[in-house]
């Protein structure tokens, strides 16, 4: 039951269309012949603008691969991926790099910050690299929202894990990208720090109209999203709107019980 889902809804920052990113018949395979492993198997997906989308699935389901492909970090074997109206499959490294720099924000699970730069320098790094001046008012607002105002001159090793992730979130937001991709952004945090970061991501969607795609295997994290996509064996097998932690957990158990035959 691979699904192609379109949500006719406009809003959010950047782009013009209601769909911030879409994948069409995306296949990602490793190796060849007998040892061929298909990580993504003809995936079609639309990421709605101004929404918080979570991608879930068991280990090896291809959820991280899907995110990496959508974000232009990884190449696909076949199929097409668009960010807004730009097809990124087939783009050369130079253009891909620029796309990531100007239109995409990242939050990784760990090691998000350059140890040689302090918090504010890390936050403005993508704009510095691009040679753009950060929008002062916006920057102030972002910094204030993430609650880092007093720690901007601190180096990463002087910040706690939660604070570091908040700096990473601020960096992702500061450049006002069309989409922010998070790869288990709370995976390394305790539940309180995790809740802080997730709450902040939620607010940035609600208040700033940000589009966010997050890979997670934590039902509580997924419950912050507007919509949850379930991946298994490289296919999208289900989706859920306005999830709660319990419902997500129930659905996950369900998948395990039903097996992956569907």
């Amino acid at each position: 039951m691979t699904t192609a889902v379109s949500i006719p809804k406009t809003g959010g920052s950047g782009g013009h269309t209601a769909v911030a990113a879409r994948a069409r018949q995306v296949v990602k395979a490793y190796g060849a012949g007998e040892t061929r492993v298909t990580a993504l198997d003809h995936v079609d997906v639309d990421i709605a603008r101004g929404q918080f989308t979570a991608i879930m699935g068991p280990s090896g389901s291809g959820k991280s691969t899907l995110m990496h492909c959508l974000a232009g970090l990884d190449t696909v074997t076949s199929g097409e991926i668009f960010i807004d109206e730009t097809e990124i499959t087939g783009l050369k490294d130079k253009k891909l790099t620029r796309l990531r720099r100007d239109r995409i924000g990242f939050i990784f699970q760990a090691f998000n910050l350059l140890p040689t730069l302090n918090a504010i320098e890390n936050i403005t790094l993508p704009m510095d690299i691009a040679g753009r001046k950060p929008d002062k008012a916006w920057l102030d607002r972002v910094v204030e929202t993430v609650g880092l105002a007093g720690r901007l001159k601190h180096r990463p090793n002087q910040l706690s894990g939660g604070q570091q992730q908040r700096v990473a979130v601020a960096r992702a937001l500061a450049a006002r990208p069309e989409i922010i991709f998070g790869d288990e952004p709370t995976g390394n945090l305790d539940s309180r720090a995790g809740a802080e970061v997730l709450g902040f991501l939620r607010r940035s969607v609600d208040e700033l109209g940000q589009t966010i795609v997050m890979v997670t295997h934590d039902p509580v994290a997924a419950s912050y999203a507007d919509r949850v996509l379930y991946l298994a064996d490289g296919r999208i097998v289900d989706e859920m709107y306005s999830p709660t932690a319990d419902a997500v957990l129930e659905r996950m158990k369900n998948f395990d019980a039903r097996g992956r035959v569907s």
Partner: protein
Amino acid sequence: MTVLKTSMRNFLAHKGRMALSAVAVLLSVAFVCGTLVFTDTMNATFDKLFANTASDVSVGPEKDDDAQVTGKPETLPAALREKLAKVDGVAGVEPHATSKQLTVVNDKNKSLSPTSGAPTVGTNWGDSQKKSVEITSGHEPHGPAEAVLDADTAGKHGVKTGDKLRVIAAPGDFTVSVVGIATFKTTNPGAALLYFDTPTAQAKLLGSTGEFSGYGLTAASGVSDEQLKQRVSEALGSSARDYAVRTAAETKEENKKDIGSLLDVMKYALLGFAGIAVLVGVFLIVNTFSMLVAQRTREIGLMRAIGSGRAQILKSVLTEALLLGVVGSVLGIGGGIGLAVGLMKVMGSMGMKLDMGELTIKATTPVVGLAIGVLVTLLASLVPAFKATRISPMSALRDAGTPADGKAGKVRASIGLVLTALGGLALAAAAKADDAAAGSGVLAIGVLLSLIGFIVVGPLLAGFVVRAISVVVLRVFGPVGRLAERNALRNPRRTGATASALMIGLALVAALSVVGSSMVASATDQLDKSVGADFIVQSENQQPLSPAVVKAVTSAGHVEHVSEYAVVSAKITTPDGRTVTQRLSAASPTYADDVRAETVKGNLKDAYGKDAMSVPEGFAKDHGIKPGDRLKVAMTGGRPAELTVKAVTSDDTSIDQGAVYTNIATARTYLPADKMPLDFMLLAKAADGRTKEAAAALKASVEQYPQVKVRDQSDYKKLIQDQVGQLLNIIYGLLALAIIVAILGVVNTLALSVVERTREIGLMRAIGLSRRQMRRMIRLESVVIALFGALLGLGLGMAWGTTAQKLLALQGLGVLDIPWPTITAVFLGSAVVGLLAALVPAFRAGRMNVLNAIATD
């Protein structure tokens, strides 16, 4: 066992990271082994050559270092031949008529003499020659107009049989035609050889058919060389002490003495440069192991957590170092042999044909190479190894990330500053020292202390200097420049050690360039100040000027005067009763105008009066000589003289420093004509306003003598500049090895940093740093490290050079000249070096796969 296994695995797993350290060990060991193999081969070659040509017993004139340079070799009477032939046990007597004081020119008036400093030898064709050469075309020389030339010289200058050669010897010039070409059966040491028949060699080279330069005796069978020597000495009786009677072995030793000590000097000089390279290599190895240990912190923590002892960790790191040392040394020994072969080829192209079959690899050579390589590697890895043992088991649990910033400690800072300060004081003391000998010791201490001080304090300086350089160089490049600056600063100890390695080589370059250019500037200054002569006439091959040349030059037109200058060997008995061997500068009285030596007492003109002389300041002080003193002067081979000291000259000069002047006429009064040395040089002053004409006339006068050069003052200045420049270039060439090792160190640091920062690189690429920006960031970091090293090195080197100049200011190095073009070129060059060093690491960083980089643990 497990330790060895883990070390082996680590070593192999990181062989890429070890590669540059291995290359550093390899280069140093190769240089040491190459030097040893090359000098051993040269020694063996000369041994064989001299052994081949030595007669069982040879009889020659007693060699006297104080003999006057008359242009003719010392000889023995021809009558001695009969006497020697009658000695019991002598199977044959072969007379030699050999001279090394000649110049051979071809029909185009071009000199055939080697330019490498090897002699031109003329000798009689006889049995002993047949041992080393054979005539490969033409025939043996007969009669006064025939000669045989050696094949190498003939080949180099395109001489064929039938060609005419002019031989310029002390008794006079003569022309011969080449009737044969002789080819060396053994190694040709690079000399030009010309063979004549015996009467011709006697008459034209020695000046008399009644003399020989020596005799070679063949022992009858059953008579040992020693026995024969004994019998010959007895037969010669009381006159034996005028002769040097030597066995073949003794002759070999005697011949080897000069070349042997030259080879020794060369060997130790080369080993010295190899030592500098080894020192620089130490930095590279220390850095490599420090970085490997830092990168493996978690792994070592885990080992400790599961129960490895500190000793086991230490052993494991040292075992890796041992492996590195052994691999590097073994490859280095091979490289050294290759290097020696290369050097032999170079020598071959310079005229000295070395037989590859002579390649001598002593058993000690690989042992020395291995010992140096292994010991240095082990020593260099000690500090990182001990640091590894202090890693706590807790490290296994901590997040890996990048290793903590190594902050330069306060203890280190104070030690470094104290050493630098002491070094500075020693340098200041050396600069003010009156006595050059004592001062040079202080200078050496100052150089050593300031070098060590800079090395110790380097990481601290990195903070200030790198920031300063960044302000000027990196800020232009915006955020990428800032990232590069932060990266260079993140581990000051690493940056300091990397830059220090470069600093050592560049400091030596800077110091030598300052001394060299001060030498040129001082000599130029002296020439301007004290030389009144317009032209200097000298021979190119360190030989004196033949009377014919002197006659030709003195009769040239448009010349106000020509001053002769000869060096006379003498023994002077000073008022304090001591007798010193001293060379007198015997010159025409006009020489006082040509070289206006400053006097501290008396008038120099008076020293050219009858039976008068001058002494230099230092000599006068040492022996308590004052003007008016009469000194006993025994010129070698002449009548005893008593000369009156009329003037004391200043030592503060670089021209004729320490010269004892006397009138050449005075020397001629006391020396018989055949003992009077030939003029060493002539100085000429042009008639008023006739400089051009005089130059033309003087050049024309020596046209027949291509070995003689007429130079005006600017030619002479250029000659000094060229000579100093050549010497400096050779030294720079040898220092290049140390600099190459230092560059490898920069490459190594960057390459390991790139590996260490894989995740950072991935992150930066993910958030939009382009490949080009990434590469630029690595390159800028490299440039900053290189410029930091250059700045320290050049600063230190200029301080050393300036101190040396101040110290030698009274020894004729009066003018300080800092060669800014050279210094600037070295500084800019090191930026280029930085760019080159970053080439591969930057390429690898740029090519790194973003996903893999993010995923790396």
